[in-house]
């Protein structure tokens, strides 16, 4: 009896391995129309995710940046042009994910932290590899086989979708790394840039103790992954496209928006970390100093009020047309009892701020109260 049971379980395991092994990667855009029925269900599920994301307003609307990212993707995978669609995702979490139908979502938070086009290509190459190698489907098949042993209580469809967002198994992540890296080199990017993006992210994750869905936080560990990229790059000659100027030109407004959104969700630690780091700060527009000042006010530790004032003054000097700085300076001087200077700054704010600025009425009220 025991033997029979053992044989039964062994056969289940074997069939599981065989089924997983049968899943073959897409060769090109035409190949994506030849999908099995069960894979079709996964695509259907992915399409409904696309619809939910779009309907709920989670797409970040920036046609220029979206077209730029799509261009990099098409350069990496020219044979999949028209089948992999890149979208900007309106979230400051450090994440990017690919759905099984070829939709790739890139969070603006991650975009803001990356330094150049080559680093962007490293992430895009990785995400597209998840789609081309059918990692969601393979993970789903594996889970289905494993379910014979009641390993997972999660419905298979959900599991596949969730893994797209929060990470795949260690082996699949590694495969995506390798395939993405090959494309990066083939497309003529400087492969020595790949690990730099991850080094910065690792530093940020460690400093902030981030536990949220995060690109590459799962298997293989980030440090191990950085080492792998370094080893791979060591075998390549240095040189190739970096694309720092192009990238920064397109992404600058998003960087500022990411700071604003971080602050709006009380992620002041993240803003301070970025703006206090001279390596990172150089990528950000000078108006970023305003957000640094506001982040100090939110943190509210010893000397933060003074640090905030310095940051606002730097913003005033380097970005003199950025209106919010003057409101913050006005509030600072109003609280300090310096009504003349407060009025001066508030008036400057009203002059520079747009007519429909949502805090205009407050500033007008403060000016009246200071008279």
């Amino acid at each position: 009896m025991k033997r029979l049971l053992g044989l039964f379980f062994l056969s289940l395991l074997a069939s599981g391995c065989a089924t997983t092994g049968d899943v073959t990667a897409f060769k090109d855009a035409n190949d994506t129309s030849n999908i099995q029925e069960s894979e079709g269900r996964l695509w259907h599920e992915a399409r409904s995710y696309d619809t939910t994301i779009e309907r709920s307003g989670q797409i970040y609307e920036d046609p220029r940046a979206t077209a730029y990212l799509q261009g990099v993707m098409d350069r990496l995978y020219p044979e999949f042009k028209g089948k992999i669609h890149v979208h900007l995702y309106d979230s400051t979490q450090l994440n990017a994910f690919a759905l099984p139908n070829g939709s790739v979502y890139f969070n603006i938070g991650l975009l803001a932290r990356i330094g150049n086009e080559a680093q962007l290509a490293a992430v895009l190459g990785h995400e597209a590899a998840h789609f081309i190698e059918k990692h969601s489907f393979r993970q789903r098949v594996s889970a289905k086989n494993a379910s014979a042993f009641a390993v997972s209580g999660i419905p298979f469809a959900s599991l596949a979708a969730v893994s797209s967002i929060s990470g795949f198994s260690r082996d699949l992540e590694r495969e995506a790394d390798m395939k993405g890296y090959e494309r990066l080199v083939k497309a003529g990017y400087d492969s020595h840039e790949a690990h730099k993006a991850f080094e910065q992210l690792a530093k940020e994750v460690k400093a902030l103790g981030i536990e949220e869905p995060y690109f590459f936080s799962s298997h293989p560990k980030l440090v191990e992954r950085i080492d792998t990229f370094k080893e791979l790059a060591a075998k390549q000659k240095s040189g190739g496209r970096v694309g720092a100027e192009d990238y920064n030109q397109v992404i600058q407004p998003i960087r500022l928006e990411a700071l604003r959104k971080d602050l709006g969700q009380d992620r002041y630690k993240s803003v301070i970390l970025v703006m206090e780091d001279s390596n990172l700060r150089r990528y950000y527009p000078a108006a970023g100093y305003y957000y640094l000042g506001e982040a100090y006010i939110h943190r509210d530790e010893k000397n933060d009020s003074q640090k905030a004032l310095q940051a606002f003054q730097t913003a005033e000097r380097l970005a003199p047309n950025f209106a919010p700085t003057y409101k913050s300076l006005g509030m600072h001087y109003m609280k300090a009892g310096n009504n003349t200077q407060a009025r001066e700054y508030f008036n400057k704010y009203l002059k520079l701020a747009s007519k429909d600025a949502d805090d205009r009425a407050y500033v007008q009220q403060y000016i009246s109260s200071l008279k």
Partner: protein
Amino acid sequence: MKKTFVLPMLLALVGGCAQAPYWTLTDDTNRVLKSTSFEMTMPAGWTRTTTADTWEQIKIDDKPQTLLLESVTASRDGVAIQAITVTRRYADTAFPTLKKKSRADMLPIEAADLYVSELRKRYGLERLRVVSNKPTQINGHQGFELVMEFKNDDGLRIRVVSNGFVDKTGFYTINYRAPVLYYYDRDYADYTKLVRSFRQSKGAFDPPPEIPGWAKLFT
């Protein structure tokens, strides 16, 4: 004999334990709602909680916490559709997920900014957008009137208007939430009447009560 004695005792006990209904329909006889810290006139034809909730459980850093508050809810068509919520939070836990206290000298614009951050963080509503934010007066207090909006997963635009103020007794908000489609405009007048009727009570200055022991069991 014993059995006949036990049965009425049991019935009496059950009857004694039964609380007043949680919801009641507001009509001309019960429109004025007096709670410990505030009172106001509720809109007629709305269903409202009979008494204020005195505690809530929320997650802070993924850990459930029980917090004191005073909160009354009213709805016309059901809370899933629209709701008016009047809440008083104590100063120490005014912005609980941000772990920030309210201060009596806090400017309305500062309280409004913190409140938006609190909502975004607590409900994971990264996409909550501020439509307008302006100063207002609530029962003689300098306060804010925030209008915010987000789309739910079905793409329905939900609008939230929040009138709030801070004083030494804590942070008060009067919120109205409804879909922009049809409901928001229809019931907005009821909300503004309620805001105008809001009065702080003497009980607001009493020391905060204890969290009931049984409520702590949830954390």
